[in-house]
């Protein structure tokens, strides 16, 4: 690879080469996996918090066995505009990575017996049913932990497994939109309440475009599982993990709870503004949108110098002046008047040129708001192997995001396969774990157990 493609703007060149060598994505397959002694059973249903959680563990080498009901997980049908590739939607194909897919009907007595025998051999169980459902089938934590005291049982559910709201709402299913709704962040995301130029019908809460609630729920559960696993390695003990995805979002809602506790003030929707750091915003450019920042006094001076608007500096001289909800829309619209005359590349060049001139105060950071299509074209992501292309024997040509743990020097995360059809690994898994041959599997199939 050419020198500048490895070094970028890293100040110590040989260090960048060293880092490349340590985390070269082409060498991943030669290295060990962090979690390849762990067995995980993921019996989540219709739930991408559960699926993302087990993806994280599977990317780092855990043997993940996905249990679906014989007709398949309904999560396979959660797909944009109903686009399916054979039996499966796009979202599921992304999170089927490295997992074995088996079927089992836990509503049948025989299915439950098989389930218990599998769980006895597992370190981790992930489930996303309504609270008490597994328990009512006698396969909840109190039953399973008796036979496998080292079991780490992770239950993911909007309202958690106990508490006031859990009792009241336990009949509701878990979805990303309700997770986001209960995670506080949604209440302060959306078009700015105090910008007079925003039409009233847009002044309402807004979810993140992706499944932020589900992915956060899954990641928090994975953190808990790895902490519990670390503890288990030392003590042999398992435990129960109660992962409520909205609590995961609430714990990441900036300072809003501390600030409310200290002042009694509720933060309001700021849109692209920020009441703690500004300018730190998105503005229109000639060819799309760009991020612009200039928070501290010197950096703000930089912004006004680039725009040649010293009057703005005089009008809003201190950080405090620039943080009020009333002033931010004014500053925003003044910046936009300037930026919309230039393309994002022109603005980047202007800022870089300004920042390089050490006689002038401040640093102004800008960056284009890339659309997904543009992200896919960026050379940086291509060289870092942020995406992988696979020709799957069943699902055909695919492009999916790689493991984001792929740059661990000793135990990089990786993708081995994308997804498997419903029940595709029944033969292998049931044979390896329970010694079921073809005749036994046929028999179970006829009974509707698998």
């Amino acid at each position, binding site marked *: 690879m050419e020198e500048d493609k490895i070094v970028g703007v*890293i100040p110590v060149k040989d260090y960048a080469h060293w880092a490349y060598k340590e985390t070269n994505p082409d060498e991943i397959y030669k290295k060990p996996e962090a979690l390849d002694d762990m067995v995980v059973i993921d019996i989540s249903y219709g739930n991408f918090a559960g699926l993302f959680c087990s993806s994280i563990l599977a990317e780092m080498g855990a043997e993940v066995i996905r249990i679906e009901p014989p007709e398949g997980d309904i999560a396979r049908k959660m797909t944009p505009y*109903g686009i399916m590739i054979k039996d499966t939607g796009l979202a599921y194909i992304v999170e089927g990575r490295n997992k074995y897919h088996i079927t089992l009907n836990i509503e049948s007595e025989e299915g439950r017996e098989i389930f218990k025998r599998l769980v006895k051999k597992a370190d981790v169980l992930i489930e996303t049913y309504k609270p008490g459902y597994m328990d009512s089938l006698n396969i909840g934590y109190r039953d399973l932990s008796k036979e496998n005291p080292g079991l780490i049982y992770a239950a993911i559910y909007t309202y958690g497994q106990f508490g006031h709201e859990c009792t009241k*709402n336990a009949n509701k*299913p878990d979805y990303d*939109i309700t997770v986001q709704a209960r995670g506080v962040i949604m209440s302060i995301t959306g078009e700015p309440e105090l910008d007079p130029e925003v039409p009233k019908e847009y002044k309402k809460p807004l979810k993140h475009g992706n499944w932020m609630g589900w992915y956060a729920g899954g990641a928090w559960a994975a953190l808990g599982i790895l902490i519990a696993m670390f503890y288990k390695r030392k003590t042999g003990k398992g435990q129960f993990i109660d992962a409520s995805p909205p609590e995961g979002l609430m714990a990441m809602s900036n300072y809003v709870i501390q600030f409310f506790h200290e002042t009694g003030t509720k933060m309001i929707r700021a849109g692209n503004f920020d009441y703690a750091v500004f300018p730190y915003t998105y503005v229109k450019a000639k060819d799309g949108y760009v991020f612009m920042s200039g928070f501290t006094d010197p950096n703000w001076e930089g912004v006004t110098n680039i725009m040649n608007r010293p009057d703005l500096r005089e009008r809003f001289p201190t950080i405090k002046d620039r943080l009020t909800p009333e002033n931010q829309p004014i500053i925003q619209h003044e910046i936009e008047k300037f930026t919309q005359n230039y393309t994002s590349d022109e603005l980047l060049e202007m800022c870089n040129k300004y920042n390089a001139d050490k006689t002038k105060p401040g640093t102004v950071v800008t960056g284009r708001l890339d659309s997904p299509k543009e992200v896919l074209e960026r050379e940086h992501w291509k060289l870092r192997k942020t995406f992988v292309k696979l020709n799957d024997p069943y699902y055909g040509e695919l492009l999916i995001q790689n493991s984001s743990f792929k740059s661990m020097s000793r*135990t990089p995360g990786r993708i081995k396969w994308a997804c498997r059809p419903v029940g595709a690994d029944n033969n292998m898994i049931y044979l390896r774990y329970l010694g079921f041959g073809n005749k036994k599997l046929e028999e179970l199939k006829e009974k509707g157990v698998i």
Partner: protein
Amino acid sequence: MEDIDELPYTEFIKKLMDPEKIFDKPEPLKGIRVLDMTYVVLGPAAVDYLAEFGAEVIFFEDRDGDTMRYVTPFAYLYKNMSPGLQEQNHNKYWVGMDVRHPKAKELFLELVKKSDVVVENLAPGRMAEWGLSYRELKEVNPKLIYLSLSGFGHWGPWAGRTSYDAIAQSQGGLSAITGYPERGPIKSGVWIADWIGGLMGAIAVMAALNYRERTGEGQFIDYLQTENVIRWLDWTWLYVFKTGKDRKRAGNRDLAICPSDMFTCKDGWIAIAAFKEEEFYGLCKAMGRLDLFEKYKDPVERLKEENAVRLLKEIAEWAKTKTVKEIDELGAKYGFAASPILDVQDAYYSEHYRERKAIFEYEDPLYGDMVEPCYPPRMSETPSRIKWGARPIGFDNEYVFTKVLGLTIEEVRKLEEEGVLFKWDESKPMTCPPPDWDGERGRFFP
């Protein structure tokens, strides 16, 4: 255990979790020492997640202190403390020391020998300039786990570029898909790319600790916050690849689950979702519109643009005639997902979150009664907990260098006189103890 076995499920779980007894349970990361060379949100959050599960964290600041001492809503300070600093710093020991000083570097290397993890989110290559990258540190401690968090990583055409949370949101594609189709892109209401980048960084450290437990080997982790945003965008990339089209903004509508959207009621907003057959049936029944169930029974057919738009319109018409509370309760009765949009006040006073200790009350020795979120998930054997919050610059110099490094208090004082170690700056209130501090309160030593 026998006596709680007969309890109904949620009572059984509550007994098992026993949130009132958190401090009587072990800390899973006890004995893991983390040197925290981070600043702002991304890095400090990653370490904070470990600190609330019991890791011993030593947090280093230079003379100005962490940037977040100055980044606070409306420039507000609470007893000299920035709420912007409080949110991602708990249970840490606070040291004022700049490793660019040769003697400070020496002390840092001594601490590295006695530590398990180093975390930093400086511009990639900065630690290498100082001779403190993993390349050098592994020579003094081969079992060390070193996590670096950055926007674009330690090699590649964009390596070393400045990154903020909003850069990661925009260059990772999140902003482009957040907002209304006929309006512009919208930034998250919080520094979400920092928080989730830190979360995945903490997960990487935990995986590395698990591996080290098996093999004794440490490692270097290059975690890219922008790549993390890309990883979290679910079906986006496969969709673009298969269709050649960009993913559009869709407001609160979920393009892959129908119905799943936010609706306007008589008195506010409600989020509703119902994808599985029995849930969709429940919703249609609650609406008194079983005709919709018959018409849109197949969940995949329902996702097709024309069907989805029509169905969501029907639900919107119905929601307009109801209150938020009515629909919330109908959700519980008929088994579909429904929830009001909780704001900070709802969460703060929520009996549920308090009971679960998700909203955690504690008395901070410096700032008094505090109420803050405590990191999930809730765990039965080894729960997370908050012991104290953010502190002034250098507040724990004495404790760290006597207890951890074994210096005498005289030696620590000498290092402070030489300017190797330092404390808060009286001319900058945001670096100082509360105005009413008595010179003793909250100090662990001497």
